[in-house]
């Protein structure tokens, strides 16, 4: 493998990792607060793609982006209100099954509405400019995805550590019941979590699909699953963990292909997951939990 090819692979891996990281944050935040694996998150990411297509067709991409962000956030909050809130007191298995149900519903609904034919994703001219740097060839979006991811994560970490709502989120994730007794409005905190998670999924969706150019009702399934694995590897519940996990998965996947094992790239992701779970079940940044009798 020549240096040039190696660098190209690195660029691909990091850029893919950046997009994964943004989606993984959604998984990890929801899990941190609700102890729920939000299986519908991948579908929300996919539907954000459709929102962008229709928003751009009607208003152009400059207005389309904020419209997409808002629509996705609304969708995320609505899903939480309708499908998860009524089950707050239910066993954790029920709420997880509800999440699977939502993902099923969203996928079937998009198939019904837009058919399974791929829809072309709108081109954002600035982002699609192709640059050649010393033999590396990629569009601008490939370069800026990881950078934008890092910036957004810093903002998010700031919110979590230095604002009132962030403090409330940390309190809720530590102890649901006690924080409620302390006067924290649980529902507001949970909604905020879904707002942030969905907004990042929308940004991730714009970056991911701008780079890959078409959307189908099944576009969310595989990335969703992989990002979830990324969140687990990084330590589910931890935002920096999700980011690191996202980059690890993106880079490992690319490197597996680079080494000629393209048929096992997905399997490898899961092997990594199982190895991680066996040796450090709480992930890289996860906290140890102690079972209380």
């Amino acid at each position, binding site marked *: 493998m020549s240096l040039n*090819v190696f660098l190209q692979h690195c660029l691909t891996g990091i850029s*893919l990792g950046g997009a994964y990281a943004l989606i993984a944050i959604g998984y990890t935040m929801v899990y941190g607060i609700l102890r729920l694996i939000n299986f519908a998150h991948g579908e929300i990411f996919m539907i954000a793609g459709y929102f962008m297509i229709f928003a751009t067709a009607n208003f152009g991409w400059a207005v389309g982006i904020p419209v997409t962000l808002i629509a996705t956030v609304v969708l995320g909050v609505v899903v939480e209100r309708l499908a998860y809130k009524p089950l707050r007191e239910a066993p954790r298995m029920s709420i997880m099954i509800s999440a699977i149900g939502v993902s099923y519903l969203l996928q079937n609904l998009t198939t019904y509405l837009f058919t399974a034919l791929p829809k072309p994703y709108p081109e954002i001219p600035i982002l699609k400019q192709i640059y050649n740097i010393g033999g590396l060839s990629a*569009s601008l979006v490939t370069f800026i995805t990881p950078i934008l991811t890092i910036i957004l994560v810093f903002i998010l970490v700031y919110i979590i550590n230095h604002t009132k709502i962030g403090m409330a989120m940390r309190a809720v994730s530590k102890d649901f019941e006690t924080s409620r007794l302390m006067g924290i409005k649980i529902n507001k905190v949970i909604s905020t979590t879904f707002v942030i998670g969905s907004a990042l999924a929308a940004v991730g969706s714009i970056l991911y699909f701008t780079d*890959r*150019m078409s959307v189908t009702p099944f576009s969310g399934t595989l990335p969703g699953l992989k990002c979830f694995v990324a969140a687990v590897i990084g330590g589910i519940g931890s935002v920096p963990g999700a980011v690191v996990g996202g980059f690890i998965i993106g880079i490992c996947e690319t490197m597996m*292909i680079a080494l000629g094992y393209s048929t096992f790239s997905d399997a490898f992701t899961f092997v990594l997951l199982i190895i991680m779970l066996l040796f450090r079940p709480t992930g890289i940044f996860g906290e140890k939990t102690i079972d209380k009798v």
Partner: protein
Amino acid sequence: MKKRILALGVSAVLAVSMLAGCGGSGGSGSSAVAGGSSAAAGGSDVIKVGVFEPQTGENGGGGLQEVDGIRYANKQKSTVKIGDKEYKIELVEVDNKSDKTEAVTAAQKLVSEKVIGVIGSYGSGVSIAAGEYFKDAKIPAIGCSCTNPQVTEGNDYYFRVCFLDPFQGTVMANYAKKVGCTKAAVLTQKGDDYSVGLGTFFKNAFKNFGEIVADEQFETGAQDFKAVLTNIKSKNPDVIFAPSSIATAPLIIKQARELGITAKIMAGDTWENGEIIKNAGEHAEGICLSTFFDEDGVDEAGKAFITGFKAYLKENGKDEVIPAVSALGYDAYNTLIAAIEKAGSTDPSKVQEALKGVSVKGVTGDISFDDNGDAKKDMAFIKTVENGKFKFLETQKVQ
């Protein structure tokens, strides 16, 4: 507690209605056949033709286009004469969801509807799965665009109006050689028998005069091909052969061009589809593919089909580009009707007998079947994309 009782009550009612409902449907099915024999004296009568296509799922897009062709054909020729009797033809559409498990029940649904014949499916995998069921029920099936050899092999009841993958793979390999390619890369979809099959046949043919420098596979539902393509780029091939579904094709094309790959990109019949140009835009320029049908290569009847079908597409709010699979759907329908006429009977096994000797002038060429049930087609149309449209290049034959 109340909820549980309610739930139990609801389920009990449902369970009872299941037996009643199923019994009812079975009953209506049998009555239709009973009607078939009695109505010979009666008056207007209906025979059912099954349309076995994916309308949702991975191949839902292509499947729907095939259904369009069949629906149009049915609209054009909605009755058939058997003896002196005029029968109305009713299409029974089932969705096999591009999934083998679903395909089995969908096929059984058609069998229980007492269809006289089946048309479909887009995608070889589901056709293979359903084939055994049609064979057991002794109902003839005509595949439109399922090109895998396994569909008709060992199954007397499956026919098809298109050419086969070994032929198609060889055609594309020959064409690649003709345009001066000596190094080829093959990119196929793991777990998809169409894609891997066609890729294998291309490799086998190309090996005779060139070198396969890369052989890569990707996962179903994959959207990121940059890593695979970077690998391929480093091997510097002249041509990339990447048979894949409509959903995947634009992703491969765009990402390859973005990486600065200038090699020719070629594929099989699935790529002759307006959706790919729509999705891949300017990057689609120059791709090559083999297909079943060309708008300019048709006779008078074909021209009537083209204008008529375009009007039909417009009526239904679709693009006025004729996908080859729609043309095949049209031909498959007409072949089945011709066989029914020839058989002079509504008995599916008689229709199957008749299909063996039927000869039809279709818009995709003359159709008659060999011993395997495959259409005797020895010609493929090679097309490319120029200025956002498919452009006919040449025809290829294999001796």
